[in-house]
């Protein structure tokens, strides 16, 4: 039965140093506010898991929260590199970051196996690539019926899975729509789970293409409007492509990155304050009259 709690207390009670945390959202519904709160609370030595590390993990890695990253594609979509991720891998700044690398299909299979209570999954994948030489999570497996050789891959069951969704009701039933991506599998594979939502309502209204996850399968639900920015929540906001472009400049240089993190995340008490600090007010995220240049960073 999901508890409706503040993001601060959810992160404080569930995310401790050294654990494995998956924060998912495939471009859509990326739980940025939760990422900020982890930085704010100074978590260290985390094993971060995510198909597309994206800006959310660039921030966590640059801020020194992680010592290991498991992923399948680490870039700033449509913009370029994740400079903090590259600096960590190429120059060990702020410290060494171990990486375990997969393909999207492999990561999706790992989450699905984890959500299904299986220790491994099977796919046609990785064959002929050099990825196989750099992970212990995959192994060849032979079909008992056809003798065909396929690839088996270890299930993922993060200590905590974090996603952002559009809506929850008071029982913590969560409703997601639009690009549902890997949200459900990532969430259901977690030993503990945090869902940040755009709004909490008395009753979930019927919504086209909606997926509902019952509250009794979730640990904590936190009401964090716009908690996915600069990612988006279909029906509530649009992707702030301009912020992604600006992130390239902010993150390119260690000093400007550190200054940005210190000022806007460490230096703010919570997500609302962060949003004021970077000049994102409600109006700028109102779907009618959305101001994509509203992010003054």
């Amino acid at each position, binding site marked *: 039965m999901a508890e409706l709690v503040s993001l601060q207390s959810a992160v404080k009670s569930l995310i401790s140093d050294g654990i494995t945390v998956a924060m998912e959202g495939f471009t859509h519904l990326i739980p940025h506010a939760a990422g900020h709160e982890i930085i704010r609370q100074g978590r260290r030595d985390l094993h971060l898991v995510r198909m597309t590390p994206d800006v959310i993990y660039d921030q966590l890695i640059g801020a020194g929260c992680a010592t290991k990253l498991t992923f399948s594609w680490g870039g700033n979509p449509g913009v370029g590199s994740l400079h903090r991720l590259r600096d960590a891998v190429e120059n060990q700044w702020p410290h060494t970051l171990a990486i375990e690398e997969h393909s999207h299909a492999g990561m*999706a299979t790992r989450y699905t196996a984890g959500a299904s209570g299986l220790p491994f999954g099977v796919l046609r994948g990785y064959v002929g690539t050099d990825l196989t030489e750099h992970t212990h999570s995959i192994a060849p497996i032979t079909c008992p019926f056809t003798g065909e050789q396929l690839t088996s891959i270890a299930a993922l069951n993060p200590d905590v899975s974090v996603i952002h969704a559009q809506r929850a009701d008071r029982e913590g039933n969560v409703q997601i729509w639009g690009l549902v991506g890997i949200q459900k599998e990532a969430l259901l594979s977690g030993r503990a789970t945090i869902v940040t939502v755009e709004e909490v309502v008395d009753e979930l209204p019927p919504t086209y*293409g909606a997926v509902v996850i019952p509250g009794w399968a979730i640990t904590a639900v936190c009401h964090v409007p716009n908690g996915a920015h600069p990612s988006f929540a279909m029906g509530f906001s649009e992707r702030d492509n301009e912020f992604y472009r600006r992130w390239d400049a902010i993150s390119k240089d260690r000093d400007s990155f550190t200054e940005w993190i210190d000022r806007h995340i460490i230096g703010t008490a919570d997500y609302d304050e962060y949003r004021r600090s970077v000049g994102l007010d409600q109006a700028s995220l109102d779907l009618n009259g959305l101001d994509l240049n509203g992010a003054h960073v």
Partner: protein
Amino acid sequence: MSELAHAPVPAAIGTDEIGADDVMIVNAARSLGALAAAGRRVCFVGIGLPSTAANLARRLYDPAPVLIYESGCIGSKPTRLPLSIGDGELGDTADAVVSVPEIFAYWLQAGRIDIGFLGGAQLDRFANINSTVIGTYDAPSTRLPGAGGAPEIAGSARQVMVIMRQSARAFVPRCDFRSSMGFGDGPGDRQRLGLPGDGPTMVITDLGILQPDPESCELVMTALHPGITRDRCTAATGWPLRFAADVTETEWPTAAEVNMLREIQSA
């Protein structure tokens, strides 16, 4: 921009400058249009150049390619070019939106994808793709984003099309890291490894088109864009580039093609 930008421009196009990327994108779109006409319509597209060319083809041809994005979008018809694989536009305009596990399992792995359309940082003579690291894996000089959806697209799509700018740095004898399998080390490797798809059948660049030699599987130049010399291609290729017996010249982009490209780019 290459010297193409300064190549003689047919009056039809007016003053609009046609760059090397335009020529590359238009030719890729033409190939997708031809494949769609031949019944190979379903195209799994990466973001960036493949998405641009695929959307151009979708607007230019009937039957049009069916666009599949790894974010779970089936049959997307975006009016503006997406910046990311998961722009809302891709879902809003899709025939169906499915989960990420489903798009890879039920649609790609099951063999329902006709064309995998990929880009990359490095491409080698056997059409293997590197999008992982430049240099060694443990101490890379450049850490690239990684494989993403490409390994399984390259493995399971009925055929693969690659779109990349051609340069000696990018077109290497052997990839520093093999993120996606083309023809491996040569003939028979795909079959030996049990990869169902035909692999890369066409590489479209800003200089022309390369295709695998049926015997050796080595990429050879089969077409040049107008104004591009063989020497230029050789200089832009890191292995001793061979040319097909009958190298053709591609058609200069038509006004209709360029105008549509500008329309979707400016949308």
